[in-house]
């Protein structure tokens, strides 16, 4: 098993932290190998930013994402830039208020930013998205991601982040009929 996961959005949406949490979940709190890479340099500034994870049940040789199996996008620019690089049949997850996918693309959508705003902090949209990802992608155990969140954010905001995670996770189940 080797899965390539790309999380993308614009700077400030916490894409890097989301990748770090997910990478920890796989490699420290589940029995999988995970490598995280990020684009450095001019290509990483402004516009679309991305965090890339390769996950496998064996040691990972080549650490970069070549054709993503799962693409999570929180901005239109990220979707436009990275959708063509992902597998045609990739699982594509979007913030449905921020991304208008192309008509022939089947995506799973969640209003992650709006749900985060409802929790009082727009900044946790990334973790809402992680909850939705965990519930829909079927690649990582819920407990593993929760432990990774606990060990990655300041103790004063653990509760908020757990609430955000749960919101995204539950949203997937509420809308299961539509998926």
């Amino acid at each position, binding site marked *: 098993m080797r899965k390539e996961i790309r999380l993308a959005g614009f700077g400030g949406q916490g894409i890097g932290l989301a990748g770090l949490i997910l990478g920890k979940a796989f*490699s420290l709190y589940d029995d999988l190998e995970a490598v995280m*890479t990020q684009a450095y340099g001019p290509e990483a500034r402004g516009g679309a930013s991305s965090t890339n994870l390769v996950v496998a049940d064996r040691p990972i040789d080549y*650490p970069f994402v070549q054709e993503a199996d799962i693409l999570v996008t929180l901005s239109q620019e990220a979707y436009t830039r990275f959708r063509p690089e992902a597998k045609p049949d990739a699982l594509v997850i979007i913030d449905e208020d921020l991304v208008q996918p192309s008509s022939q693309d089947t995506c799973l959508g969640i209003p992650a930013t709006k749900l985060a705003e409802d929790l009082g902090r727009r900044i946790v949209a990334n973790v809402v998205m992680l909850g939705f990802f965990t519930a829909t992608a079927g690649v990582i155990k819920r407990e593993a991601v929760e432990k990774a969140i606990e060990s990655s954010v300041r103790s004063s905001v653990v509760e908020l982040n757990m609430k955000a995670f749960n919101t995204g996770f539950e949203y997937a189940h509420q809308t299961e009929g539509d998926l």
Partner: protein
Amino acid sequence: MTSTGVLVGKHFYQGDEACAEGAIAAGCRFFGGYPITPSTEIAERLARRFPEVGGVFIQMEDEMGSMAAILGASAAGARAMTATSGPGFSLMMENIGLAVMMELPCVVVNVQRGSPSTGLPTLPGQSDVMQARWGTHGDFALAAFSPWSPQEMFDLTVHAFNVADRYRVPVLLMADEVVGHMVERVVVPPEDQIPKWERKRPDPKRKDSFKPFLAEDPDLVPPLAHAGEGYRVHFTGLTHDEQGYPEMDAEIHHRLVTRLVEKISHNAEKIVRTEDHFMEDARIVVIAYGSTARSARRAVKDARREGVPVGFLRLVSLWPFPIKQFREIADQVDAFIVAEMNLGQMALEVERHVRRPVTGVYHAGGAMMPPDRILEAIREVANRGDTHRR
């Protein structure tokens, strides 16, 4: 107050962070450096962590000063380190030679980026590996290692300090941007499982007759007295006698330089590390190091699925070159392939030690070599007929 401060357990570390934690675990308590991409995260993490463990972090005016600072700290007894990339590495060359001549242990990390000159600051390269061997002037020997994972950024940083202290030599950690910036699981072992090779220290009973550069033991390493301990020591970059005083004499010079080289070559087996796989039936062997070795291992696995009898040998240490390991396999295989992110540097060394065809898979740097390029080379060599299937 010093504290061991080792963060025992499983972590999801960037390679540069793992290097900094390896330094702390090794007991390094002095860093003098000048930040440069892609090594900056090493300095950043040590700047944050050293106050917790009683270490000293100094951002120096440049890389020449950085090297000078760590040599001073080393002479005073500290495990000392700096970290840089190509442009800074060039500036450090002069004082790396001074470290060789004064036999002061230190660790220099070079997270290689695309070169020459300022090249590609944020992108990987492996084109400083011959500079590591021959960059400072003169005949000399030192040790250099090439990590291929964040875990090895930790482990080899520890090993680098051990080799430096044990053999009184500068040790270079020749990482690359891919390994420095990628994030992966790193297991930090309990402190009693972290190997520690001590500096050889003088016998206090012989303080009055102590000669700081007299190597009486078969390992050719003289004991190191630290500044302030009351020994009479004299450090100079000039050729010196056993007392450490300058001596402009051909025979003394020849004896000194020969010992500096032989203390590494004679102890090479304890310093050198390699890793190999699938060698039992191998007719072709792929050689690689650092991040390129990850692609090479993938290519070797793919080729074996196609039935090609190919093996994989990774240079964990670059210098001293693992001559013995190569001599052992050189006559058993038909051909070598060397994959590296430069235009053919370690391949020159492989050619020197094997009497078999050596095929290079080279790229000047800027991106990690894709496994497919190495796989194509394996297929070509296999089809060319250097290889005879048994």
